[in-house]
């Protein structure tokens, strides 16, 4: 098997942003209430099974025939109603707090577009286009820099889910959705497409890289540059521009401006390829171009039937796209 990108456990009970924490607090409350209900009703059930089991001495006799009791019915109607009211109020408060949060002027804006089976990220204010690995700045409590995402889809339904940072929101064609997150520590956060979107729904992985303010600044600077023009890899660039690669992929500063696949201008700045299916190494890159089916069966990238020499040249060219 290929080198898989490094992974770690992503629990909904390990929140790292304001909204994820609000959800976590609500979840503890709801879990506690339902656990109490379970213990009470479950114990009553268990007690009645043991206490009222048929005994040999009962043979032939029927127990007292009881048809009901209005008082008891009333009690076990009113109490659940009260519990529901309390749960609802707690829920509505968090819904409002997350969904109706005003967008601060400092917010970073990103347009996320779901594709079969990868993510496109556009930063309209910064002029950056990237794929699959979303870079956002950390949002320390004193200096709050939340990221607001506008969610769109180019084809089928998808869903954006980073359990530690926020609940999921769908990306639906012909519809504009929004969500926000304000991660409070730096690091790589894993997630993936949560709404079934087609054959390779499983390998539509998602990485959110939360950078410190300085790192994010540095990242945006490099991402805004055009691809370097390196004459040593002209052969590979020619392969890229004369086969169908450039119909789908864009490389800034060159004639390649395809929109169907990920923007490759800074391909080598990403740790993974094929939407997180494999680590971004020379071998994986070569295999991915040679035969995408081997890495991600059902992916929409076709095998271009390149010769070994063309493949090597192409990979050398791609490796200059930093």
């Amino acid at each position, binding site marked *: 098997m290929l080198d898989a990108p490094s992974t770690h456990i992503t629990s909904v009970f390990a929140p790292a942003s304001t909204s994820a924490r609000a959800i976590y607090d609500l979840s503890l409350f709801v879990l506690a209430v339902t656990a109490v209900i379970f213990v009470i009703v479950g114990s009553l059930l268990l007690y009645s099974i043991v206490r009222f089991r048929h005994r040999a001495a009962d043979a032939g006799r029927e*127990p007292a025939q*009881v048809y009901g009791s209005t008082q008891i019915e009333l009690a076990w109607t009113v109490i659940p109603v009260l519990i529901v009211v309390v749960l609802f109020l707690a829920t509505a408060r968090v819904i409002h707090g997350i969904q109706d949060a005003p967008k601060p002027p400092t917010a970073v804006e990103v347009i996320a577009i779901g594709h079969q089976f990868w993510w496109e990220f556009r930063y309209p204010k910064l002029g950056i286009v990237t794929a699959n690995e979303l870079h956002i700045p950390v949002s320390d409590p004193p200096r709050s820099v939340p990221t607001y995402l506008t969610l769109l889809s180019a084809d089928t339904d998808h869903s954006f889910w980073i359990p530690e940072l926020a609940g999921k929101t769908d990306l639906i064609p012909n519809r504009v959705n929004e969500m926000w997150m304000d991660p409070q520590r730096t690091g790589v956060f894993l997630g993936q497409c949560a709404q079934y979107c087609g054959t390779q729904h499983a390998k539509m992985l998602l990485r959110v890289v939360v950078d410190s303010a300085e790192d994010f600044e540095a990242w945006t600077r490099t991402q805004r540059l055009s691809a370097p023009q390196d004459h040593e890899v002209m052969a590979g660039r020619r392969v890229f521009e004369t086969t169908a690669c450039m119909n789908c992929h864009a490389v800034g500063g060159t004639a390649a401006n395809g929109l169907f696949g990920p923007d490759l201008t800074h391909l080598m700045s990403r740790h993974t390829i094929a939407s997180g299916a494999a680590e971004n190494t020379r071998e994986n890159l070569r295999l991915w171009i040679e035969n995408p089916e081997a890495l991600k069966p059902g992916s929409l990238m076709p095998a271009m039937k390149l010769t070994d020499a063309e493949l090597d040249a192409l990979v050398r060219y791609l490796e200059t796209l930093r």
Partner: protein
Amino acid sequence: MSSPATAIRQTEVLDQPWVETLHQWVTTVDHKRVGILYILYALVFLVIGGIEAVTIRIQLMSPHNDFVSPQVFNRMFTMHGTTMIFFVAMPILFGFGNYLVPLMIGARDMAFPRLNAFSFWLSALSGFLLYFSFLGGSGLYGAGSAPDMGWWAYAPLAARAFSPGSSADYWTIAVLVSGFGSIGTAVNLIATILCMRCPGMTLGRMPLLSWLYLTMSGLALIGITPLSAAQLMLLVDRYLGGHFFDTQAGGSATLWMHFFWIFGHPEVYILVIPAFAFISEIIPVFSRKPIFGYPVMVAATVCIAFVSMSVWAHHMFTIGMNSYANSFFAITTMAVGVPTGIKIFNWLGTMWGGRIQFKTPMLFSIAFLFQFLIAGLTGIIQAAVPFDWQLSLSYFVVAHFHYVIVGGILFALFAAFYYWYPKVTGRMLSERLGKLHFWLFVIGFHLCFDVMHIPGLLGMPRRIYTYEPGRGWDTLNLIVTIGAFIQGIAVLVFLWNLIVSCWKGAEAGNDPWDAWTLEWSVSSPPPAYNFASIPRVASRRPLWDRKHPEDPDSRYE
């Protein structure tokens, strides 16, 4: 009951050629035979859907497993969902309703026997159509594949751009046709229950099962119609250039979601209300007490039916509805918990002070109570919308609804099988095999579906054919798969029991459980046309009145 029912003499010739028997079964309009056909048909699909489930579980047993390709995996979960809902749960519940309702209300058949047979054969055809896609789904014979768009067929995945070929059409037409069959049977059940009750059986004296089937049928009429409409619209999109759901031409993907779930949520109650019906008949008999709070049980059921029509968008909390819509569906969803809770309390009240006999039907009913309690509570948990933004579309949801459907509905069905099998065949199911089946299934169920909640909490989405190692999902998925296998073995024990007991089971007699409703007053199996003379009842428990003339129920109701 004033007149003891005498059986109509069996006029059937016993030594007839098998072709004749087959012909009689195929052309039958007898509610009992149609009921049995429904049940057998559903059992066949239960095995098929089970094989699909096991395929899914083997694939997910370990990370990067390549037991099946992603394409096959996607077809498996699509077919598993569609099969289990439309071709197992619906027909098997209609089958029990068909068999039991006329017997329990003292009628000789359903109101419309020919419609009844027609509805069954429509359902049978639809199952065949769906599975024919394996052969002809790409339009050429032998060049087919099953649909792979998920059993919700969300737009635009079901559009021609994303589902070329005909397999999506086989799915659409199969669901449409099975919907017509369900509507036919629902109309029939409603007419039967409202018009065919025996003298003395007022609405307030019907066995709870009849009330629940009446409610369920009403809900089926309301729920299945929008689904059928949506299927027609999808066909218009696919073949006549319509743009209802075609997002590339300005259609709406969320419109399909609303259509689908305004069917899909009532559907949950269409399935679970008959399960409640079985439990409401079985728990009293094995606790030796009448059902506690009969009028409240009826009211709670009708209340569930009404509220269940206003909760559909809780399947869609992640689609970006505004905060008011989300709050509305949160409160309606939580509100369903109240009447459902009342039902659980009343079953508990029925057992309280009783003399509980732990026969196999009762074991399954008790397990039902525990599991349905948990399923209801995880439902409440997901009604807390923000938490659902985490849980929705994850394995937590998959675990939750399997808890409802397997832990609730299937357990109730097993209880019903053990309870009414003696009536249907005249022979008892083996208690020994029954207990083996019960314990295996309980262990398998809990290994599988308790554990399945956890990967969801750790970020595992549903419908993925494989996953990366190191996310904490590996061991959990292995345990789930082991649980699935144990349940599979338990079902084989059950099927074996069904087959062997048909010949080797102990003679049941008319009333093996010392029960109280009218079906136990006739022979086992009941004769053609059920009752020689139509019974007359004076209370909810006519056989109790007959067995205890000194202290009849009619004195207290």
